[in-house]
């Protein structure tokens, strides 16, 4: 025990004496979490607040054009412009304005669009009421021309398509009802009122976040980003940990320790304890920043709920997994360069697979399957379970156990490798 305590004392002292390194271990994760969360939050806000710049050329001065224009004006997602320098643009000018990035999107509603739809609807209704099947004719279709800035994200394009489809189908159904009203009134003696005017929404929807209790935690960019980037930052402990192991090996201190009454397992265990404390302090600092500092910089405050015990357990399991990985890297790699390059790139890959950059559910199938081997994925899901889904302990248990087993497997790998090297 005395030897073990001295090893802990030594590792703690070496760590404390490296003030620059220690500061990096705390400042860099804080900076990473703050910057990434702010970035994600402001990006989201800027889309909503300033909107996507959309240039609309409405050549159909009728129901469709006016309705699309009106609905787009109402949308908070788009900032609609109908002129360039107080002048109505031509189709070519719309295309050029989008091409040079003045607008993200250009929409052209062709002239006579409403008339085309009306004619088509009228013919279809007439055919339907006379018992014949309506035959779609492509020449009757209306093409809305949409120009996109090449840098526009796919998701914006999809939002735009959805919005336009929604506006046009509303117009179409209104025209259908008007046409049906007209047909009915031709037959009936007593005229019926225009059915399109009594159109009411039959289906409403209510939106709620599904959680396992009624804590009322609202998911936002902070609740999503703080766990993700914290897990990512915690795994970067692999680099200093492996570095400490390699330094001790290179300067001969490890060999000297191994000739003393201190087993390799004890030597590793003392390091594990010291780095666990560092990881835990990192997490506490990030948590405090999320709770108290984020509101100061206009970010939503992090809500930790009442599960601080579970949060601590998941933090320790994550730190244990990161340190275990550090042990494996530090044992198997030969130099600082090898360790730092391998550790940093592998952590980035594991983070990408684990859903730190993009959610796992939107990944391609084969990447989704690969994500289950990433310890960052287990850790991230565990934190989401606690911070967003308000899961019970049994909910985080599989992830917790997986992280601990991963660390033990890394430890076994390191001890086995050390034994092989001793025997070789």
């Amino acid at each position, binding site marked *: 025990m*005395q*030897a073990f305590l001295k*090893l802990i004392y*030594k590792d703690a002292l070496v760590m404390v004496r490296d003030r620059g390194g220690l500061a990096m271990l705390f400042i860099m994760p804080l900076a990473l979490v703050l910057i990434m969360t702010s970035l994600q939050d402001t990006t989201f806000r800027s889309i909503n607040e300033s909107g996507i710049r959309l240039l609309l050329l409405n050549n159909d001065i009728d129901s469709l054009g006016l309705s699309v224009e009106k609905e787009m004006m109402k949308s908070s997602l788009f900032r609609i412009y109908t002129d360039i320098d107080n002048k109505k643009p031509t189709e070519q000018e719309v295309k050029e304005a989008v091409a040079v990035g003045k607008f993200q999107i250009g929409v052209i509603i062709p002239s006579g669009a409403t008339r085309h739809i009306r004619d088509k609807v009228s013919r279809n209704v007439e055919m339907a009421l006379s018992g014949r099947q309506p035959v779609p004719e492509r020449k009757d279709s209306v093409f809305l021309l949409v120009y996109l800035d090449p840098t526009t994200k796919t998701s914006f394009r999809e939002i735009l398509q959805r919005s336009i489809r929604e506006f046009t189908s509303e117009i179409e159904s209104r025209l259908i009802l008007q046409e049906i009203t007209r047909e009915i009134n031709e037959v009936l003696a007593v005229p019926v009122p225009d059915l399109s005017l009594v159109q009411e929404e039959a289906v409403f929807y209510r939106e709620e976040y599904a959680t396992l209790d009624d804590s009322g935690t609202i998911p936002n960019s902070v609740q999503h980003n703080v766990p993700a980037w914290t897990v990512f930052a915690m795994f970067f402990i692999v680099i200093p940990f492996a570095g400490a192991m390699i330094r001790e090996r290179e300067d001969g201190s490890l*060999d000297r320790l191994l*000739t*003393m009454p201190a087993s390799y397992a004890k030597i590793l265990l003392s390091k594990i304890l010291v780095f666990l404390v560092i990881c835990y302090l990192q997490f506490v600092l990030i948590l405090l920043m999320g709770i108290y500092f984020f509101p100061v910089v206009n970010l939503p405050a992090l809500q930790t709920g009442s599960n601080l015990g579970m949060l601590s357990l998941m933090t320790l399991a994550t730190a244990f997994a990161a340190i275990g990985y550090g042990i494996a890297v530090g044992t198997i790699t030969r130099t600082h360069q090898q360790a730092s390059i391998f550790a940093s790139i592998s952590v980035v890959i594991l983070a990408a697979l684990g859903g730190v950059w993009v959610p796992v559910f939107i990944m391609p199938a084969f990447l989704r399957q690969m994500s289950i081997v990433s310890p960052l994925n287990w850790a991230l899901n565990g934190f989401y379970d606690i911070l967003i889904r308000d899961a019970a302990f049994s909910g985080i248990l599989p992830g917790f156990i997986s992280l601990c087993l991963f660390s033990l497997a890394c430890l076994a790998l390191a001890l086995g490798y050390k034994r092989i090297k*001793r025997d*070789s």
Partner: protein
Amino acid sequence: MNESDVSIDIKDLTKYYKGNHIPALDHIRLQVRKGDIFGLLGPNGAGKTTMIRILCGLLSPTEGEVTIGGYSLKNEMADIRRIIGVVPQDIALYSSLTARENLSVYGGICGLKGRILKRRIDELLPIFGLDKNADRRVEHFSGGMKRRLNLIAGLLHMPRILFLDEPTVGVDVHSKNVILENLREINRSGTTMIYTSHYLEEAENLCSYITIIDEGRIITRGTLTEIMDRTGSHTSLVEVFLTLTGKTLRD
């Protein structure tokens, strides 16, 4: 040699490194008497470091039996670790820690504690001329100071057997003198020493028994006088060494 006088007993010690068909050590048989300063000499690549690393438990032998202080290397390594001290060729110290902190760590791991640990540190630092720098970080030390502290760290816990791997490499005359004088003093108190060096004059003056190995085999052994007598008209260990190992360069 009487069995009770034997400190280290090596029988047929052989070591093949993985993928290498030439043995680094080839059936070495030797005994180290208690209280000796045993010089293990040889050119580069002779097998000295391999032998020291095996005796310290850092490397497994391919075959052979070794007992150190009566303990089997194969089965009682934990006991061996308690009675040996190692002064490695590398400066195996924590540079961000002070001299006192380094000694406190190594002494503590070797079982010294409290007042005994402090007393030993306070005893040894002045002997090796480091008392005035006890609370300075090792990173600010000169090469000679580091080398002296490296030595103290190996003998702080008063080991029965002390392994010294090139303990004076790269130090100035004054530091070397302090180190060698004190090694003699420590040996007089009964510590057995296994000493390797490339400085043959040092070995000539310090060692009570010398073994020269080359290509994993013992090529001569005995006291300095015995070796000189056996090899003819040589006047120094350097001449004996060059005659036995040849004059070609070794890497």
